[in-house]
């Protein structure tokens, strides 16, 4: 029998209670989602049961303390403008999404690759496997790339993606989001995540967002409306900084 939203709500609440109790009892705060999170059905067979094996990040010969680099040959000038890929303009609420890419010491990650992908304004991806019967937009593919500048800043021009249904359970809907893929100075800092929009009513129901059991951590996935980023007669501004986890070679040099 297909699961309903209320079945999923109960599971989400139970796991939230377990986490909240553990933290109240002194357990460490979890900044990242729980890989074993049954309310998100696809996670059940796709997480390891064995604990992760720790690698000493203090050994400078560890290959993962360095990472891939990208440069001007890897992007084209309009890659960060998702509204200019086709002959016409995409339909939707035009936005400027901008923020800084930082490490945990607050240092900017410069010249690194930021990749995004998203649904169109109707909540449909330009992907053949996407079956949601919402209209495709011939003027929107929903893919962007950019390199961060000397302050670690990135900026994209795009349109606001729509929420969309998915098959996790009956009447499952994803809150509107933009997928981000980013690199740090070390491979250990690699991050793929999703950015959300303020006050989305779908937040409490979404098992993907709720797999991040820490409330403050979930809040860090939500962009802030920033009027200073809005451009007159053109776009609404959203600010979202990204902080990368994981040790790097520079982190060792500077003595942690």
């Amino acid at each position: 029998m297909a699961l309903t939203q209320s079945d999923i709500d109960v599971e989400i609440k139970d796991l939230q209670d377990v986490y909240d109790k553990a933290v109240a009892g002194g357990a460490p705060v979890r900044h990242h989602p729980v890989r074993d999170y049954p309310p998100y059905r696809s996670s059940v067979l796709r997480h390891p049961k064995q604990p992760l094996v720790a690698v000493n990040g203090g050994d400078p010969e560890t290959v993962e303390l360095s990472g891939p680099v990208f440069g001007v040959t890897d992007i084209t000038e309009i890659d960060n403008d998702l509204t200019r890929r086709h002959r016409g303009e995409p339909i939707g609420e035009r936005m400027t999404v901008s923020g800084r890419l930082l490490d945990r010491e607050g240092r900017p990650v410069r010249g690194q690759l930021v990749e995004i992908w998203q649904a169109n304004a109707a909540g449909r991806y330009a992907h053949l496997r996407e079956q949601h019967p919402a209209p495709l937009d011939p003027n929107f593919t929903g893919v962007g790339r950019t390199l961060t500048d000397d302050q670690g800043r990135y900026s994209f021009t795009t349109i606001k993606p729509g929420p969309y249904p998915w098959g996790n359970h009956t009447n499952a809907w994803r809150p509107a989001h933009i997928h981000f893929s980013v690199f740090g100075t070390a491979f250990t800092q690699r991050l793929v995540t999703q950015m959300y929009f303020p006050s989305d009513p779908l937040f409490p129901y979404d098992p993907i967002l709720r797999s991040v059991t820490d409330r403050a951590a979930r809040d860090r996935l939500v962009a802030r409306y920033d009027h200073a980023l809005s451009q007159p007669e053109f776009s609404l501004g959203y600010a979202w900084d990204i902080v990368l986890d994981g040790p790097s070679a520079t982190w060792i040099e500077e003595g942690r």
Partner: protein
Amino acid sequence: MTERLLPTPSHTIGPFYGHALPFPGGGEVAPPGHPDTITLHGYVFDGAGEPIPDALLDFWQAAPDGSLDGAAGSMRRDPSTGGFLGRNGTDFTGFGRVATDADGHYALRTLPPGNSGLPYISVCVFARGLVHHLFTRAYLADGADPLLDSLPRVRRATLLATEGTHRTYRFDIRLQGEGETVFLEFR
């Protein structure tokens, strides 16, 4: 010491990254026709032993001379069409990206890594259903190694790529269950 910033949480890559992240030539790290080229390949399996057709693998490794500096140009572009040109055939970028095919199979053509100690290629695994990526390593040779030596024999074997004919190395990744791959965390 100043208060450290709190990290942005990870999220699953989801099912619809296909038009965004994979790029033509993502698995062609070796310059075309290079005589030292090796092929690292294998399958990605879930906890039921089924191949995963929508996993994405990022690879990072030392250059043959041991350099960890990498080089830009993995996704070299044509500014007039926006298309992908492939790497320039001389610089070794050290970075590869391959999505598994409908059989759950991937292949990476690269040059042997020259890192100190046993040669290995670092792998970062993404998939729908996997809410936080997983790191592992494909070791191309067995021997003394701080990580391998810390593991029981059965688990150690999951990090060793098996050498086949024609300079191929087979490296399967099992996300869960029997023969579960050793996944790493860096501290």
